[in-house]
């Protein structure tokens, strides 16, 4: 978040920019950074498999398995943290 300039409130464009950045941060990352990082990593692994060989169908299976593991891990973490 941009720091407030000394001697007054931030200008309107700066506030809009800050709100825009906050919206996307909350939208994509929020309280579950593991989902964002994990999803990017899962797609990257699928891309690597597709680039490296001809196992394009298997790349899809790997992607689904990784996404499923990611969801399970995130739910498990949240369940452990719950009181």
């Amino acid at each position: 978040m941009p720091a407030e300039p000394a001697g007054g409130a931030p200008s309107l464009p700066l506030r809009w920019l800050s709100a825009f950045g906050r919206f996307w941060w909350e939208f994509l990352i929020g309280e579950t950074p593991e989902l964002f990082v994990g999803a990017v990593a899962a797609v990257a692994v699928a891309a690597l498999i597709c680039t490296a060989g001809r196992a394009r169908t298997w790349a899809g299976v790997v992607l689904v398995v990784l996404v499923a593991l990611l969801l399970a891990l995130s739910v498990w973490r949240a369940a452990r943290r719950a009181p």
Partner: protein
Amino acid sequence: MTVQLHSGDVVLVVAVFFASAVEGVEALTIVLAVGVTRGWRSALEGLAAALVVLAALVALLGPALVHYVPLSTLRLVVGGLLLVFGLQWVRKAVLRAAGLMAKHDEDAIYARQVAALSTGAGGAAARPARPARPARPGRERDPTAFVVAFKGVFLEGLEVVVVVVTLGSTSHRLGLAAVVAALAVVVVGAVGLVVARQLSAVPENALKMGVGLMLVSFGTFWSGEGVGVHWPGSDLAIPVLVAVYGALAWALTAAVRPSPAAGAATTAGGGGAR
């Protein structure tokens, strides 16, 4: 027209309709609270202004994405976006279904909004100096009511815009997605008029679970296509993905749901309320 296209369209329509309906219920809660407390004129003006801005966003962003971004890039980026977005929805829905997270209580949100507006706080748009209510509620323009209604509808609607633009543009069904979203908003509005404040009767968590599963499925499918994955059956893979992720969500809900004995022990220890 092939069967494969039909299956993709059906999933698209269902996902857009229920995503729009869920967000519509949340926006309607705010508009009802503003209208009842501060008067309907400014509440409805705020609602109308937000809908116009949201429609303009869909009209501007959708065609621009389709015309200027290569399809594989669009599918990769949009797929990734939907994947993350959908995973967040499913995760929350699983935790709520398992009783580990409080369910979204529209009645409580309505009561909080009414209390805030009645004391002039106006929720997020705080204006402490304003009087509690306009002299003739519903007749005069009330900036607080306008801002709260606009902000509520706009912020809830932005999620709908993201779903409509991403799902619609990637599948070249932007018009269909926009019409379905508008239809969902009309249905929610009509139901809202009938049930008024009984919005908590809407099975919101089940809807969110369903939409989340579809978003994750679309996200997996398109991000995979974007990087070159070959899906057996093409679009028919989407309903299969929905079923696979649905089974996983059901299993996760059962796995993390606290046992009745553990729940009783927690309640006895004073930590039952979430």
